[in-house]
């Protein structure tokens, strides 16, 4: 194992890796700060560039973008009350109050330092969890993988939508998309309607760019008005040691909450940040200051959303199951190179997995350095004009998507999925659940059918193997629990109305 870490470190400390990692973190901070580009959109826009890179370097660079974006989104949240990404929505509550009091840079500093702490701790948890879990997963056969993927899908769809029915519909639509193309078992084309372009299935990367990035451009364009500009004065004071010490408690809370929430498929930085804010308030010595410019109110959500980054990699690396958009994009980057994350990657490509571990630690340190240097130039990032930014993003999306396969058809897929993503978001469905289901759909179907081939068509393989059975039962509970709850809530309401 120490040998593997040596391999990882030797990859991550190569000058080229450090350069791309540095750029990745910078791009992440920039993308995170710009309203309209979230961390996963910034990652998706970089995907075309990763094609010509070594997979290990591409993988750690994307993680760097993810990490940088979690800090970047707090910049606009604090300075102009517009979170660069929803993960920093909770930061607005106290961050903008601090900015109004002329302490915007102090809030940024707290966000940066506590975020770095959250990020570093979560990488250590990731290393501690992913390696043993992957060892266990090595013994998994198709029935266990079937149980695992169905369980993952159940959590994602039940968390995804505003209503469980809409979340599930989003998931099922994604599964349906995954069946388009050549059937992996019999080789017959399914749902291609005679088109040769569809034989290979829906291009995952084009669909991700469409559902995440194109739909976001549409949403932003449809909103009337410019973004806000910085109003109050801006000093570049950094937090003092005494100020930092007041946030210790909420940083610990945020880090723990963020890491745990990050591991759960379907829950991301947004949910983690809000839970951390509430818990930070509850456990604080000065809860009355929350909402009025409390430094703890910045530290709790910002340490939490950075701590999500390590947690989110656990299911991806150990089982090959992406639980968030960011993880889905990282999976997409490996697939461009014909690789898949999962327990076998630990054995066959230790450079990728252990390179990522070391790379994520370096990325957090890069974030601290760049964040510190960027505190002053932040003002210029924030005051960018909306029309120019949206036009630039769209132009970058088009040329980037084209360059994946040098194919105009991918552009049409990106535009069509962009419109679908816009409509889904408008009517409270979940494009994220759809993408994750599109990725997992292939795994669900093949593991199901492979199980039955191996057991000569006997369904007993799903209930005689304890791990498979336990996972399937967990999946069923996950799906049924919210339905039971909603029926109960409805009954209660009816009783109350009488």
């Amino acid at each position, binding site marked *: 194992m120490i040998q593997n870490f040596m391999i990882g470190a030797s990859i991550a400390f190569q000058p080229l890796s450090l350069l791309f990692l540095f750029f990745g973190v910078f791009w992440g901070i920039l993308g995170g700060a710009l309203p309209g580009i*979230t961390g*996963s*959109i910034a990652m998706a826009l970089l995907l*075309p*560039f990763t094609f010509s890179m070594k997979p290990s370097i591409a993988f750690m660079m994307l993680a760097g973008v993810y990490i940088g974006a979690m800090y970047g989104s707090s910049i606009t949240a604090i300075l102009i009350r517009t979170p660069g*990404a929803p993960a920093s929505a909770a930061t607005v509550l106290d961050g903008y109050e601090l900015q109004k009091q002329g302490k915007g840079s102090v809030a940024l500093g707290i966000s940066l330092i506590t975020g770095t702490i959250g990020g570093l701790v979560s990488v250590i948890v990731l290393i501690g969890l992913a390696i043993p879990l992957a060892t266990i997963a090595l013994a998994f056969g198709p029935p266990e993988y079937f149980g695992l993927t169905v369980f993952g899908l159940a959590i994602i769809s039940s968390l*995804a*939508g*505003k*209503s469980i*029915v809409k979340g*599930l*519909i989003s998931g*099922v639509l994604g599964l*349906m998309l995954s069946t388009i193309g050549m*059937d992996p078992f*019999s080789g*017959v084309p*399914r*749902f291609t*309607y005679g088109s040769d372009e569809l034989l290979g299935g829906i291009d995952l990367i084009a669909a991700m760019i469409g559902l995440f990035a*194109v739909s976001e*451009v549409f949403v932003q*364009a*449809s*909103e*009337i*008005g410019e973004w806000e500009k910085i109003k109050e004065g801006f000093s570049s004071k950094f937090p003092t040691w005494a100020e930092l010490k007041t946030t210790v408690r909420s940083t610990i809370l945020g880090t723990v909450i963020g890491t745990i929430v990050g591991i759960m498929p379907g829950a*991301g930085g*947004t949910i983690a940040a809000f839970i951390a804010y509430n818990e930070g308030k509850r456990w604080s010595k000065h809860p009355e200051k929350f909402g009025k410019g409390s430094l703890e109110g910045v530290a709790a959500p910002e340490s939490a959303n950075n701590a999500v980054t390590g947690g989110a990699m656990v299911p991806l690396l150990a089982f090959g199951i992406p639980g*968030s958009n960011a993880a889905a994009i990282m999976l997409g980057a490996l697939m461009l190179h014909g690789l898949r994350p999962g327990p076998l990657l630990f054995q066959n490509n230790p450079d990728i997995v252990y390179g990522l571990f070391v790379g994520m630690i370096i990325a957090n340190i890069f974030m601290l350095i760049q964040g510190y240097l960027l505190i002053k130039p932040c003002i210029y990032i924030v005051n960018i*004009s*909306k*029309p120019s930014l*949206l*036009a*630039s993003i*769209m*132009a*970058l999306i088009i*040329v980037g998507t084209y*360059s994946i396969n040098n194919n*105009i058809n991918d*552009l049409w897929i990106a*535009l069509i999925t*962009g*419109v679908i993503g816009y409509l*889904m978001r408008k*009517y*409270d469905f*979940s494009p*994220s659940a759809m993408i994750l289901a599109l990725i997992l759909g292939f795994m669900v*179907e093949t593991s*199901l*059918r492979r199980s039955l*081939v191996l057991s000569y068509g006997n369904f007993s393989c799903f209930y005689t193997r304890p791990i498979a059975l336990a996972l399937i039962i967990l999946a069923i509970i996950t799906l049924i629990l919210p*339905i039971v709850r*909603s029926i109960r*809530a*409805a009954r209660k309401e009816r009783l109350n109305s009488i």
Partner: protein
Amino acid sequence: MKKSDGIIGVILLGVAFFYYYSTRDLPPPSVTEKLGASFFPILLTITLAVLSILLLISSLRARNSSDGKAAIAGGDRLEEDAFAAGEISYPFLFGTMGLSVLYVALLNAIGYIVSTPLFILAMVRLLGLKQWSKGIAISIVLTAVLYLLFGKALGVPLPAGVFTTIWE
């Protein structure tokens, strides 16, 4: 919102039916492979149909109690799915969609170098940039940057369009 749910339910039922109809040509399961190519799709169709009917029923009941409250974590949406519920400008929205479609459609015909600055200029004007000079500057600089980055540095064969002959 509830009325739109009903319409969406009907559309999704249609999708489920169309998808089911398309599974009929798939070959039957073989001896070695019990489920065959059509089992999973049919399972999905049935699930979608049931869920669409649930959506339809809940919309017809039009109860004020939103079932979303029951979802875990207070019905928060996933990170990327948030939708700003501000005032929607349909000219901006359809304009952006239309320009993007036009851009992609013209890419092969007139080439990357010509269509890109036109697209960027049209977009910034549509979305409210007042000064022509600024718009033209942005469109030329951005096209040059993207062309050098993708066309030259990454070696992507960008559509040359009308310039094919001059290029080669």
